[in-house]
């Protein structure tokens, strides 16, 4: 099987991978770059464990081919984790017991990361919508939703604070 050289940006760094035409992007990230935080729960596009952000949009890493990622900007769970400790979303998931076995967790973190990127303080409906394609077998989702609500609440507080104090919008990217 011939291999293709693919150049892309992953978590802010330019990288190149050798992929077979049939290899999924998630598989390539895992096996070529050692980014094993992206999990494979079904490899048929249903569970969401493989969710990553490609060019600003959440995608199922198992449904996209590695060769399609030429020139793309890819963000994985490794890329949204601070160099030490946890991001506010990750911290909230921990506080609210939004994970048990942790296998769905990177996908959840990515789905929520995207949500908070586009909607600084999402409603419960928007939270549900954002994770409706992410299966979790362990938690029953309640802790995940509470975690996201807590982050949203905090963002709202920060924002009203910022508006009165600084008169400008707080960036949500830090979430």
């Amino acid at each position: 099987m011939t291999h293709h050289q693919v150049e892309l940006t992953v978590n802010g760094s330019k990288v190149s991978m050798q992929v077979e035409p049939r290899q999924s992007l998630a598989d390539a990230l895992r096996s070529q770059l050692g980014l094993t935080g992206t999990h494979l729960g079904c490899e048929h596009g249903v569970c969401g464990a493989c969710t990553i952000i490609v060019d600003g949009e959440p995608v199922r890493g198992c449904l996209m081919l590695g060769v399609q990622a030429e020139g793309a900007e890819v963000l994985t769970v490794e890329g949204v984790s601070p160099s030490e400790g946890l991001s506010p979303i990750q911290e909230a998931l921990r506080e609210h017991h939004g994970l048990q076995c942790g296998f769905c967790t990177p996908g959840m973190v990515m789905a929520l990361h995207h949500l908070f990127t586009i909607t600084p303080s999402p409603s419960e409906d928007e939270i549900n919508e954002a994770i409706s394609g992410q299966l979790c077998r362990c938690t029953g989702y309640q802790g995940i939703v509470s975690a996201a609500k807590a982050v949203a609440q905090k963002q709202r507080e920060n924002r009203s604070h910022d508006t009165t104090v600084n008169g400008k919008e707080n960036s949500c990217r830090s979430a």
Partner: protein
Amino acid sequence: MTIGARIPRVEDERFLRGEGRYVADIAMPFMVEAYVLRSPYPHAHIRSIDASEALALDGVEAVITASDLPDDLPPIPCRIPTHGDLGPYLQYPLARDRVRYVGEPIALIIAKSRAVCEDAAELVEIDFDPLPPVVDPEAAIKPDAALVHEAGNLAGRWGFDLGAVDDALKNATYVVSEKFSIQRHTAMPLETRGLIASYDVGRNLLDIHGPTKVVHTNRNVLAAMLGMGEAEIRMVEPDVGGSFGARGEFYPEDYLIPFAAIRLRKPVRWIEDRIEHFAAINHSRESAFEVTACADAEGMITAFDVRLVTDMGAFIRTHGDVVPSHAAASFPGPYRVRNYRIDAMTVMTNKTPTGTYRAPGMFEANFARERALDRLAAKIGIDPAELRRRNLIPADMMPWHVGTESVKRPTIFDSGNFPHVFERALEAYGWDAPIEREADGWLRGRGICALVEPSGLGPFEGVRIEVDQHGYATIFSGSSNQGQGHETVLAQIASSILGLPVEKIRVRHGDTGIITFGGGTYASRTAVLGGNAVHSAAVGIRDKALKTASAKFDIPLEELSLREGEIWHGGKNEPVISLGGIARMLMPGNPEFLKPPSDMNMPDNDGLVVTSYIRGVPGGTSAFAVHMADVLVDPRTGDTRVENYFVACDIGRQLNPLIVEGQLIGGVAQGIGGTFLEELTYSEDGQLTTGTFADYMMPNVYNMPPVGTLVLEETKAPGNVLGVKGVGEIGPSGVPAAIGNAIADALKATSGLNILPLTPERVLAAASTVERP
């Protein structure tokens, strides 16, 4: 941080950062990948297998079939006592001359990549001679049925006959007879299985990453099958993406992958894909009950008479018949019923073999019993809660011996004040609060289920605690962890005795290389048995440390105490030495603690190390729980919406309320899946027709109602020092009954809703039995 503290888990950070290390994240130099070629037929003779073309493919290393395995290879044994001899139904790692279910392993293909394996699989020529498949268990026990095994399709028939059931039936004022069926579904952890085995030929050492749940048992089984010493095999559990009973049992692959690693002398990795998982992992729950329940004029239940047929699938696996066995042993539930009869049949069919799934047998039995009781209450004309109230086992009758047994252990409810917990549950939920019966054409109903959940079963558990000279404690546990939070709760228990923060206590588990014996994780047993082993070992560490300090500093033992990782002298109120300091003193060869010189070598200290094994009490310990739900039903479409769900339970003592709540809510989610969505269906010709996540529906966020919990610590388990009862299986166990009862209540239906899952069609059918204005 002590027992009972609501603290976030210590293991979470690595999972949240994507730094969990699951089996598919592990690789080794020169590793090759394996693929299991599985039967496409439910039942067929294998005439021949020709792998020559596959072997010729570039990158293929081996194609292993049954003829390559040792002639005297035994089948995979049961690890639990069974009713009768199920030996004729055990499974060999590879099909020999006949396949019995779609998905049965026929060959193991090994190549440089999984993709090449899959290409090679296309090239293996197998000549099958199809046989008629046996799919329906009731048909399987008819005299003219085709045989799945020569020993007969009825693998076992056994039961109990307690009290005087016939008399009770004769004298009863109210009698109901109902049939129930519970669909085949299963655990479906989000991570599929996987193994990586490597063999050091020179030293005859086999290392396997990927096993979980019962690694010591699995290691011993493998040692016997390979003819190796037990200590020559090390099984190591990585991070594991859920088990819920199914994952971690000894499956055909658990023999095949190590076997291949030995034969090829290369590390061999096998990562199951989701499609194979559907056909290969133990299925569960498929069973049919016929229940007759009767009561006297006062509404006292006088007897249960039950027939149970369980579909075991094509082979008996490691769990034997434990699922129907638990169902039969505990069927009477939390009620004071002395007349009980059950006729249980275990039946072989050409479907995937079965095993346990969280609340094995209990989910099924609770559904049948509690739905039948609602029918009985309706017949008597009393509130469903009132019927249960009248019949609960009173506190002064504890311990309650049901009179049955399962896996050769008597079924005993060790303790509990069921009536008190029941009233608290009703009150907390507002069972008697008025309910608005209609909203926009939808009907509202309320349902209840009471149950007893046995836990802490199995013979023993063990841990060793080691404290190092820097004051770090490590718990080496014989149990295993697939997401339950053991790294936190076991540390909390040790922390409460040693006074160390949980961050200074490491928990290691699921590794046969770190502790000699281990029981493993099943039947909600880690908090009960593992937790008590930690408690006992931590107490041992404390006592040893105090004794050592007393001798070294010549302070009376009574004046010393252990606080926050340091030993304090009570009289002076100051720390004398740290736990780490004691650990250093107790290191063998340490001059600080040497006895006077001697001409003889002599025994020395063995470190600040204590090993403790705890033997379980025969009946385990039982938690009482009540599930309640409010459900909206659309009688025009059969649509349902669970508005509110509530679980109350008495678990003796909570180790960490955050984790307890998580277990309950997560368990309810699985129960909801089993109630409405999940089903492994087979076509008449024996093909699994729900073999992907696109057709096997698991609950997503929209399927979940708000779940409330009330966790009580009313009655400590008398059989263990911590007083804890297991909580892991309470969540799913009562869901289909509570919801089925709520739907029936909404519709005022007096028939139907006895077949799971409760699909819109079935709800609609029940709705259509009732005349509406």
